């Protein structure tokens, strides 16, 4: 089997830990969140030279530089800095106020989060629906033309930058056909969903190849299993078997794969927001980067990483709960 670039190889590395089952998963998530926090703290330290100089540019006076070092906490020892960072994080759930506006990073992120979360949710739904249809077509037409066409798909989409796919969709459905707006977010629920349709398809597009590949394999495995052969022999129509039995069995592995790919999906969403001019977390990230607003950048990194760990944990727990077989595995 050819390994995929963002496919099944990304399964958890299996940290050696005490406990079994859910307790162990919880402990691992906690340790990873701790490491993530330390990594986010050191983020500001990989800047070559003086971060304060990077914020103020070449023209900062020595006094302004000293003041900025104080604001960023760089005049303290590394240990004191970390204590301060951890204290703010634990007491306020925050990574500090924005250097530009003074508003807390948590608040800035919370203001932008809804549209990003909606976009992520929409693209998840779209990715699953489209993948189910494609995988169903491929699996039921195994080794015939539709199957071959769908299987070539991943090789072609592998090299497609997600922002470029977005631009092509804007060009085709926005500029040429005028079916969808070319950017921005509409008002009200319908307007919002309508304007998020193209961005959601764009983000979903990057997930479809991996999902189709996995779903197709799962469906084929079930389709060729003994119980389906028996069902078919007893005269139950193929479509009923596919939806009732095959789908049910393919759902769990797909959910797990989704958990693994979630961090790709979030990253892609941030970039796609930039293409479509959506004022979500992605655009907050780029504004903060252009203003060198370190606390906000750290906040975005921390919240996204913690979200990925927590959702991964929830998926793992629900998988154990849904499928008794996974309980036996170490």
């Amino acid at each position: 089997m050819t390994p995929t670039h963002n496919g099944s190889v990304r399964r958890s590395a299996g940290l050696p830990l005490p406990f079994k089952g859910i307790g162990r998963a919880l402990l691992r998530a906690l340790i990873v969140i701790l490491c993530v926090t330390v990594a986010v703290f050191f983020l500001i330290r990989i800047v070559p030279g003086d971060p304060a100089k990077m914020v103020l540019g070449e023209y900062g006076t020595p006094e302004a530089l000293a003041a900025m070092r104080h604001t960023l906490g760089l005049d303290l020892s590394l240990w004191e800095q970390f204590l301060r960072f951890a204290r703010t994080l634990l007491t306020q759930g925050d990574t500090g106020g924005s250097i530009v506006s003074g508003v807390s990073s948590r608040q800035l992120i919370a203001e932008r989060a809804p549209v990003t979360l909606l976009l992520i949710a929409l693209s998840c739904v779209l990715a699953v629906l489209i993948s189910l249809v494609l995988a169903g077509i491929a699996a039921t037409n195994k080794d015939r033309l539709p199957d071959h066409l769908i299987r070539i798909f991943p090789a072609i989409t592998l090299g497609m930058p997600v922002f470029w796919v977005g631009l092509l969709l804007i060009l085709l459905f926005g500029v040429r056909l005028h079916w969808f707006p070319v950017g921005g977010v509409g008002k009200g629920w319908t307007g919002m969903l309508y304007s998020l349709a193209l961005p959601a398809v764009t983000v979903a597009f990057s997930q479809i190849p991996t999902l189709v590949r996995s779903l197709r394999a799962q469906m084929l495995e079930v389709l060729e299993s003994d119980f389906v052969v028996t069902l078919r022999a007893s005269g139950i129509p193929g479509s009923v078997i596919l939806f009732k039995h095959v789908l049910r069995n393919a759902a769990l592995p797909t959910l797990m794969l989704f958990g693994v790919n979630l961090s790709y999906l979030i990253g892609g969403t941030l970039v796609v927001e930039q293409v479509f001019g959506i004022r979500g977390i992605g655009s907050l990230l780029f504004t903060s980067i252009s203003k060198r607003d370190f606390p906000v950048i750290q906040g975005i990194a921390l919240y996204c990483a913690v979200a990925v760990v927590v959702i991964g944990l929830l998926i793992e727990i629900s998988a154990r709960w849904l499928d008794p077989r996974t309980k036996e595995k170490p």
Partner: protein
Amino acid sequence: MNMNSVTPEPAGGADNAAWTAGPIAGGRSGFRRAARIPSLVAGSLMLLLIAALALLIPWLSPYDPTTQDLASFLQAPSGSHWLGTDQLGRDLLTRLIYAARTDLAIMVLAEIVPFCTGILLGMLAGYYGGWINTVVSLLTDTFIAFPFYLIVIIVAFASGAGAQGIYITFILVGWIVFARVSRGLTASLRQREWVASAQTLGLPGYRILLGHLLPNILPQAIVVLMTDMVGVLVAIVTLGYLGIGIAPPTPDWGTMIADGQSFMTTAWWLSAVPGFAVVYMGIALSLLGDGLADLWRRTS
């Protein structure tokens, strides 16, 4: 002391049969075998073509990739400019191929360190287990928690835009894929009899790792490298598009797409064409990866 006589070539078990052969089938027979795998041939030819174009472009094109010619800006494709010109009157095809030089060189260079460190860390973790394994697992889990593009964007920005930022980014995050592959393979190969016999004979760990396990891991790592390079290329292009990658006027597919975005209604090909170049590379490298996997599976 000749150790080769006492440590036989690993026997291919059912689970890992594809990857237990020697790393690269050499000689004439190897070449003939390779020539019979269509995906390998097609992928290699596609890569050779783009490499030849990138190397020979100064002699192939009458245009310079950075000299502006404002009198002939935004021209549609024609006999003198096969793909038209951009907003500064530069020949699009010439810039496209010069950009291949920049982007492909950075893509290859950016993968060297992560490829080596990833394999090394993975092998150490898989072979020795214990605290090395714990540390490597913890690092992997931590880096994986960050959305890929989020960490790439932040690190590239923080370490200074341009090629240097891209190298630092992938030194930090690129090794994980290879560490996972080599860790898993090492852990499974370690169970084999020939490793146990090598240990019994008192062969030091580094000789077992480098002399006997590494040749068995390299083929699959190289196959993974092929698809991973596409990911690196897409990341380079994305950073260029976002303005934190290769800085203008150096031609780069990402900045070309970003520049063309303002002229989507009048000259759509300015943004579309550089994207197809990335897609071309994606197809070429995944064909090559599939072909190599096929070749090594057949050799075993």
